[in-house]
């Protein structure tokens, strides 16, 4: 493999406190040098003037659907969508069919990802067998097979005792427990956030309390066990406040928020468009503001997409029976540039930190930096690129997104994984 020489980019590496014009030499899949005296004669030179070179973006929360949901997404299409969106590593959820609760299924996902050769994939395994919340899955075997953490995702462990045991058990493997924090009885039959809009539309509500209660429960369990708790897709002011207080008293926990919970409110549901139906639901403006503030002050560590592809025939059903979720890999970075960089709410290094370094720390995968010796996973961003999202530009197998037809400024234009250009426009 030829050496790559990245020239003239604005290099942003929050881990090293670096933000300046620099050149990077990539050799044998690693960062070989930052600002070498000169480029090796046989290196492939890439002029990145006007662009940002950042440590590869990492998405903590992706649904690849395979095995079992190939009509929605495959590992091939999902990882291609990832590199097209600038992600070099993703963690994928275990709510497949069969679920990722056996060594074989975890290894299958890793093998298919290696074969697809787009981005790196870190499978998350189930906490409980078949995600039923009754007994622990063989976590030791699953972690040994390559699972980066465990979660029952959308089937949250209702039994607090089992959740406590799971947290205690992960201590000896030093792996995170990821919690989709939701009290299912409170949300039963729910379609959208419970509030004035749900009252007006006659759509059954999902109260913020359903999230607050479970976030609080899991925080207390993390506190008594010392486990590494990660709260997925935080969406309520109450959850943000609880996480902030917990961090202040030294509880080991982290949290993520999705681009849609930072940019959309429950008012969107007035269109009755199922592309606004998510779980957790789009909340009211007050909650969105709290999430933004939580992200800015570090209460929320990371941005994660909860990329949830659904085939057209499923998502176009009536809103009360259509599945929850939207795709997110190819819109996350542009949306976050618009929301945070253009408004000045975050600096570029802060945004990169929340989309690369912090997710890496949460997963414990040692990435998110361009330091010499690190894996050469690099995302090249053109902050000025103007483009429009259409079904033709989407690489994911599904097009369930509320942003079809929307124009953006800024995107990833080149994605380098293991020192190899895997995506480029």
């Amino acid at each position, binding site marked *: 493999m030829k050496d790559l020489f990245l020239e003239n980019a604005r290099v942003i590496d929050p881990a090293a406190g670096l933000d300046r014009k620099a050149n990077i030499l990539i050799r044998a899949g690693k960062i070989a040098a930052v600002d070498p005296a000169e480029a090796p004669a046989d290196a492939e030179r890439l002029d990145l003037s006007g662009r940002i070179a950042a440590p590869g973006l990492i998405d903590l929360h992706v649904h690849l659907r395979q095995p079992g949901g190939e009509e929605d997404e495959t590992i091939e299409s999902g990882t291609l969508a990832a590199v097209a969106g600038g992600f070099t590593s993703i963690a994928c959820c275990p709510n497949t069919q069969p679920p990722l609760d056996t060594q074989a299924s975890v290894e299958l996902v890793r093998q298919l990802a290696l074969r697809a050769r787009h981005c790196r994939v870190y499978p998350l395994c189930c906490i409980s067998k078949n995600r039923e919340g009754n007994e622990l899955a063989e976590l030791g075997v699953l972690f040994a097979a390559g699972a980066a953490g465990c979660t029952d995702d959308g089937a949250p462990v209702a039994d607090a005792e089992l959740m406590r045991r799971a947290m205690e058990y992960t201590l000896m493997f030093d792996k995170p427990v990821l919690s989709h924090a939701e009290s299912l009885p409170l949300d*039963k*039959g729910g379609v959208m956030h419970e*509030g*004035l809009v749900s*009252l*007006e*539309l*006659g*759509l*059954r509500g999902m109260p913020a309390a359903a999230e607050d209660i479970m976030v609080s429960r899991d925080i207390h369990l993390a506190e008594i066990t010392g486990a590494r708790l990660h709260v997925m897709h935080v969406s309520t002011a109450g959850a943000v406040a609880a996480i902030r207080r917990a961090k202040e008293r030294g509880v080991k926990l982290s949290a993520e928020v999705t681009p849609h919970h930072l940019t959309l409110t429950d008012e969107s549901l007035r269109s*009755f468009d199922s592309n606004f139906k998510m779980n957790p639901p789009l909340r009211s403006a007050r909650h969105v503001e709290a999430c933004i503030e939580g992200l800015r002050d570090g209460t929320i560590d990371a941005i994660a997409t909860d990329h949830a592809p659904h085939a057209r*025939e*499923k998502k*176009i*059903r*009536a*809103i*009360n*029976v259509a*599945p929850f979720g939207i795709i997110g890999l190819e819109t996350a970075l542009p949306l976050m540039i618009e929301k945070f960089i253009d408004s000045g709410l975050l600096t570029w290094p802060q945004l990169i930190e929340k989309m690369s370094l912090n997710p890496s720390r949460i997963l414990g995968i040692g990435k998110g930096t361009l330091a010499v010796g690190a894996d050469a996973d690099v995302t090249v961003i053109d902050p000025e690129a103007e483009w429009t999202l259409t079904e033709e530009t989407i690489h994911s197998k599904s097009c369930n997104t509320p942003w079809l037809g929307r124009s953006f400024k800024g995107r990833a234009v080149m994605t380098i994984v293991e020192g190899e250009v895997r995506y480029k426009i």
Partner: protein
Amino acid sequence: MSANAETWGAPPAEWTRSHLLGLETLSREEIILLLDTAERFRREILEDPRGTGRKIPLLTGRTIVNLFFENSTRTKTSFGLAGRRLGADVVDFAAATSSLSKGETIIDTAQNILAMGVDGVVIRHGCPGTPHILAQRLDRCSVLNAGDGTHEHPTQALLDILTIRRRFGRVEGLTVALVGDIAHSRTARSDIYGLKKLGANVIVCGPSTLVSQCWEKLGVEYSYSLDSILPRVDVFNLLRIQFERQVVRPFPSIREYALLYAMNAQRLAACKKDVLIIAPGPINRGVEITPEVADGPQSAILDQVTNGVAVRMAALWLTISAGQKNSN
């Protein structure tokens, strides 16, 4: 012999909507126009002063499909009758609901309807917003919402309001109480939007598990005590408890509900002398209303049914005529 379409006149130019999806999106003037048109249909056609056979051929040659995904007797019959009294052909489309994750979607249904060359679709569906989605897909066919989940039921509210207006000669300044299962009632929502726009005071009354305090933010008073509001209410609309929509039972027993909220002779005696009692039906005798009240002189429950046909004639005529004009 039918009434004369020539002398009836053209549909009013102020009406431009080819769909009737809900009252929330209508203006006060549009609601009044619908009510006035319905009033005219009731007086000149349904009450049949000139022996016209209770028909007027304003929609001759037009086809209307009744597309009901939820059970209905009176609304479907009422729409069917309204269409026929206007000279239209009315077809019932038997539609079964399915909870499967795949199958025919509302979009497929819409395409089928378009292919059949239909002029108007009357739709009832368990999911809020379904008529709205359908309307987005159908440009040459009017969509009339006959109830979408717990969202809206505009023609029911219009007939309620017409009944009130005929009794009192006005709506503005009246105090109207909606009693019962507000949370699961599409009629309540449409009533609230319509009545507020016409200047009525609205009280929602029922058990606290079914009456959200959030209604206050929309200018609606709430009360948990029927007894406390009896003397100051002009109209009671007694809503049915919709057991089929409730995920968790919101009160301990029907007996306890009836003790607190049933309109009976004793409670009626504490009401204003000219109080009006209406109910969207089907009524549960002995639950929200006792027989002596339902069949008594204050009750306009059967008058509502007649007004329902008039309101639906107005809705069908105005929307389908506007749809025809828009597509020309």
